[in-house]
């Protein structure tokens, strides 16, 4: 049987059909978790973001324009929720001095010897280093990078999301890439790239 389109389900949800909203939650929870996890880097935070995303969507459902794609609309809400959480966490980290373990991991990566690099290349800890390097980014840098790198969002859209000019958005992405490069270059081998 053909799946009812999002638009039809949204229309029912708008008229107060809780079951319709449930369908939307069931359809879109996993993709929202993915974007939330990439942005927050924390499983529990990502779960919270998913929940907050649907709560906001529920409250703003009447503002959803039917010409738009519901998934895209929801994605934008998830990004904003994640950004709010990152900014709040940034404030808290500033207050408590950040996550020392992450900073130590990323900093140590830059000081590895060649022999250590070889071992690291074979290590399952590589992913931890990537996660730690991502932790070095500010909330804006992380958001801009995730949206550009993983979500393929145009720079103009990223600027709008962050509330900054296009050039500032570009520089935010550059800064993020530079930080990642500085943290990860010592443990990475260059990859011939045809891009």
């Amino acid at each position, binding site marked *: 049987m053909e799946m009812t389109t999002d638009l039809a389900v949204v229309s029912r949800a708008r008229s107060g059909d809780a079951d319709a909203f449930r369908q939307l939650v069931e359809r879109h929870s996993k993709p929202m978790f993915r974007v939330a996890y990439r942005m927050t880097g924390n499983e529990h935070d990502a779960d919270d973001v998913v929940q907050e995303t649907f709560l906001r969507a529920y409250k703003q459902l009447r503002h959803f324009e039917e010409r738009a794609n519901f998934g895209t609309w929801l994605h934008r809400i998830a990004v904003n929720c994640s950004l709010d959480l990152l900014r709040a966490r940034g404030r808290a980290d500033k207050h408590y001095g950040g996550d020392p373990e992450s900073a130590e991991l990323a900093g140590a990566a830059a000081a590895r010897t060649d022999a250590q690099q070889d071992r690291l290349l074979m290590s399952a800890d590589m992913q931890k280093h990537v996660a730690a390097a991502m932790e070095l980014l500010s909330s804006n840098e992380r958001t801009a990078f995730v949206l550009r790198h993983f979500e393929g969002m145009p720079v103009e859209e990223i600027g709008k999301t962050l509330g900054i000019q296009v050039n500032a958005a*570009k520089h935010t992405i550059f800064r993020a890439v530079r930080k990642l490069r500085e943290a990860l270059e010592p443990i990475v081998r260059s990859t011939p790239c045809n891009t």
Partner: protein
Amino acid sequence: MQHLTEEQLVSHYYHDGDAPFAPQHLAACDECRAQFDTLCGVLTLVDQLPIPERGDAYGDEVWTRLRWKLGSNRRRSVYGWMSIAAALVVAFIGGILWHARTQQTVTPQTVAAHNTPPVAPAAQPAAIASASKDRLLLVVVSDHLDSSERMLLEISNADAKHPLDVASESKRAGELVASNRIYRQTATRRGETRIASLLSDLEPVLVELSHAGSTLSPDEIAALQKRIDSKGLLFKVRVVSAQVGGHEAPATVPQKGMDSL
């Protein structure tokens, strides 16, 4: 030869169009090519950032956590409107009292001259206050019934062959029991026998659920389902909820237990 900047390399990687000359330059310049390959290596590594798996039931789990929040949001919204309505009623009654007092003090002669029968000033506000209390009762009961209906549905739809985790429902039922008692007593006092009767039927189920702890055994589920079914409780709740909420009752063939409504 002028080398590509880091920004231009990143732009080229993301196809941002800021460095249209980059491909030709990279083909000719080993130094920039090496820089670009390193950049690709770093960003390829970042791609390996793992994302924890979420199972097929994830959407359902999100909904389970979410629906109570949606309910409480709605309740907050209802309470918000109730506060505004109550403030308006108070202001209205205050206005009437002030008006009545002003009329009495300023123009008693006029009243006498027209030989108008004396009016009890408190009678009209009392009637208005009574009507507004009735309305408030209906609004809060409607919301209470919505929450109860969701809980009854959960139990009615549960698979009676397996234990059911009801930790959050049990806690919620405890809160509903307390409000159910207050609404039942108020409805009885105000002569709303139909609502009072329904709340009276609902209370034992809520009490039982509130004492259930974190898990219901298959036997307990079956017993609760039987109780809900034998009184046609779910249907009664829906009908009364629709009526007090000012909506149409669902167009369903009457079920058992409806005769008492």
